[in-house]
């Protein structure tokens, strides 16, 4: 029988072995607030209207390489977000009720610092902002960033003009029968809007931001027979749109009147016979440097299928207008592609709320699918 001292020694030795070598205490920490890391070209901004409780939408900011969540910005009641031209600010057109679901409706343009994600300005605007799903074009800045244009709907449509520099609402421009905002790049005081009569209305502002001129384009589309998706891609003064039946329509908005180019078809005769059509909420992505256009496509399309998710994603060479890529669609309803070199194409599934990413340099190469990240995201913007 071992003595009590020996038993104590053995017990201590065993415990020392189990505990391993002696470690220093972990340092005491101070809780702080993070800032987002320096943005690269793969930063993503995912707008989520959270349809089942859409009084508190959000903008999710993601690293499009690691898919790490970098932060969230509150969007309020059907809020719409856009970036300033220098990407230093996130601008949100939204409203809030004083008592959650009732009370006074306070509409404003909220300005967030894009690095700290802190609210840095609140600019009061008329309580008319469009309570719609998030779409590019529901809020945009002028090319120089001075003015911010907010889409209204009561349901009569108009655009509120905000002077970002002065920090105040300027005026409201009636735009009956027209929808979404497409600023010119070369003329900072000018924007156009798509109209249900198949035209674009161009509004030119004076130096104070008040409307000085308004002119309609010639009719270039038929909203009954082949409507335009409003989610267009901007390259300079040009906007590229898809039509419900799969045509590509480029419109130049530099002048006092918008000028439409001749549309061209995505579809071959065989595609047409199989009923392929674009579908989704942001069905088009355009990569300017590589000259590629991408579209979310579904077969057996028909009237009413224009929001159907993609069975395939197609890529086109803008120079030859020929299809150069064709990959599985990942149920995508939203596309966005990064700018510059080594582009990546992102495809958001509305059903699954996942994001598939493709290397888009040549053929589309699926890299991975990440998420889900949101509840009901329908808009994706890139840095």
């Amino acid at each position, binding site marked *: 029988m071992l003595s009590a001292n020996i038993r104590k020694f053995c017990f201590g030795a065993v415990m020392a072995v189990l505990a391993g070598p002696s470690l220093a205490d972990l340092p005491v920490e101070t809780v702080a607030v993070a800032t987002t890391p320096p943005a690269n070209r793969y930063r993503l901004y995912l707008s989520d209207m959270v*349809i*089942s*409780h*859409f*009084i508190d939408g959000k903008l999710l900011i993601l690293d499009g390489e690691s898919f790490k969540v970098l932060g969230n910005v509150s969007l309020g*009641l*059907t809020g719409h977000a856009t970036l300033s031209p220098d990407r230093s600010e996130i601008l949100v057109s939204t409203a809030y*009720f004083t008592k*959650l*679901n*009732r009370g006074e*409706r306070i509409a404003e343009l909220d300005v967030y610092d894009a690095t700290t994600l802190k609210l840095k300005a609140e600019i009061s605007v008329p309580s008319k902002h*469009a*309570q*719609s*799903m998030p*779409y590019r074009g529901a809020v945009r800045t002028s090319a120089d960033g001075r003015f911010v244009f907010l889409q209204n*709907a*009561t*349901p*009569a*449509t108009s655009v509120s003009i905000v002077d970002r520099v002065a920090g105040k609402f300027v005026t409201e421009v009636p735009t*009956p*029968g*027209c*929808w*979404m905002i497409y600023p010119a790049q070369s003329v900072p005081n000018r924007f156009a809007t*798509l*109209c*249900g009569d198949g035209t674009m209305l161009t509004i030119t502002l004076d130096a104070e931001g008040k409307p000085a001129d308004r002119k309609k384009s010639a009719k270039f589309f038929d*909203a*009954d027979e082949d*409507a*335009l*998706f*409003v989610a267009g891609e901007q390259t300079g003064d040009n906007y590229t749109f898809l039509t419900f039946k799969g045509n590509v329509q480029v419109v130049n908005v530099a002048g006092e009147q918008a000028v439409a180019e001749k549309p061209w078809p995505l579809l071959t005769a065989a595609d047409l016979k199989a009923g392929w059509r674009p579908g989704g*909420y942001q069905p088009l992505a355009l990569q300017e440097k590589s000259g590629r256009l991408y579209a979310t496509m579904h077969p057996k399309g*028909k*009237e*009413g*299928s*224009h*929001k*159907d*998710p993609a069975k395939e994603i197609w890529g086109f060479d803008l120079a030859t207008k020929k299809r150069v890529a064709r990959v599985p669609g990942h149920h995508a*309803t939203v596309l966005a592609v990064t700018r510059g070199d080594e582009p990546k194409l992102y495809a958001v599934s*509305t*059903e699954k709320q996942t994001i598939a990413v493709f290397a888009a340099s040549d053929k589309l190469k699926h890299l991975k699918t990440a998420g889900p990240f949101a509840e*009901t995201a*329908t808009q994706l913007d890139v840095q």
Partner: protein
Amino acid sequence: MKWFDDFFEGGTRRAAQSISRRSAISRIGKLLVGTAFLLPVLPFDRVGKAVAASKDKHDDDTTCEYWRYCALDGFLCTCCGGSISACPPGTEVSKVTWVGTCHNPNDGKDYLISYNDCCGAVTCGRCGCNYNIGERPGYRMGVHNDINWCMANSSNTYHCTVAAIVGLGES
């Protein structure tokens, strides 16, 4: 309110659908007179119409296949404390509305249906349904379904949608 379909797979894609006649415009124009807002230009040039394909469900007003829901997008008030033509307690009826023409398989007639949103309470979130037949972007606001049709009410949070008969369609 008429929201979007991908979240609401139930039933919407399973239904056979077709476009109604443009002659419905005049009837819809008359309906709009009764609303609080008159749109600057009557935008209704097409109205959704669908024929329910599933006979066992076209009489159940808590399913998307119910015949009156041929052009409805939103959460069914029949799942939220209301009925086919009554908003749930504590809500109010939307002042602006979207109209469809639906075929009733029981009597073989087409009916004009008013899809009023019910407003003022937080979103119900049950029994989401959606059709996009005849739907167009907001440049045709009256047939746009990605927007809150409680927008003209003083308390304009969206709760759910009813589907009331407001007349006979053209045969």
